């Protein structure tokens, strides 16, 4: 399963709920305001780092760039563009958008 999260972890519990339901081997793609969860040195960095032991975490590059945070991405998070988003959606049998 590819999970997408588009909410800032500072405002909503969306990422937390997503990670609680993402099974090992699934992928989590952070998009839109969700990319704020991809950053190092935040109150949520540890949660994301721990999750990466079980799931692959990706962040959408254009959303990082737009928000001026591309240089603060946590180690281990893979940055993809929209084509990479499509590849992930193909790779996984279904996509779940955590809205």
């Amino acid at each position: 399963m590819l999970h997408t999260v588009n909410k800032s972890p500072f405002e909503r519990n969306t990422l937390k709920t997503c990670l609680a339901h993402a099974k090992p081997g699934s992928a989590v793609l952070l998009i839109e305001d969700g990319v704020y969860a991809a950053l190092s040195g935040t109150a949520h960095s540890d949660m994301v780092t721990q999750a990466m032991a079980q799931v692959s975490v990706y962040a959408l590059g254009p959303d990082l760039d737009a928000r001026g945070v591309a240089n603060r991405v946590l180690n281990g998070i893979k940055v993809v563009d929209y084509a990479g988003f499509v590849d992930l959606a193909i790779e996984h049998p279904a996509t779940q958008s955590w809205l």
Partner: protein
Amino acid sequence: MSDAGGVVKKFMFVNRKAPYGTVYALESLEVVLISAAFDQDVSLAFLDDGVYELTKGQSTKGLEMKNFSPTYRALEGYDIEKLYVARESLEERGLSEDDLLVDVQVVSCAEMADLMAEQDVVLSF
């Protein structure tokens, strides 16, 4: 009315938002009702504030909005009987199964994750 051509997929409707404050819960329910006509394997998941869609005693007179909560009880008549509610979300809100207006299966986080993982189509609201 279905033109599914005999294909049966597993559809899950994931509800994580409370009713009335936004329209998502109501319009999600409208999709669920339509999906019944397509003979698919439909299930509904209620997590986080989505569990508030199912609480008893909703009365919307003062809002002049439609109280759509009785519709959840009608789903059985459409052969939509798989309603899964997250135990943790109920507990966080001080709710139990007795507070809900329809028969549901209360599931753990791990069980919900398993159910989600086996779906073909997940529509979230």
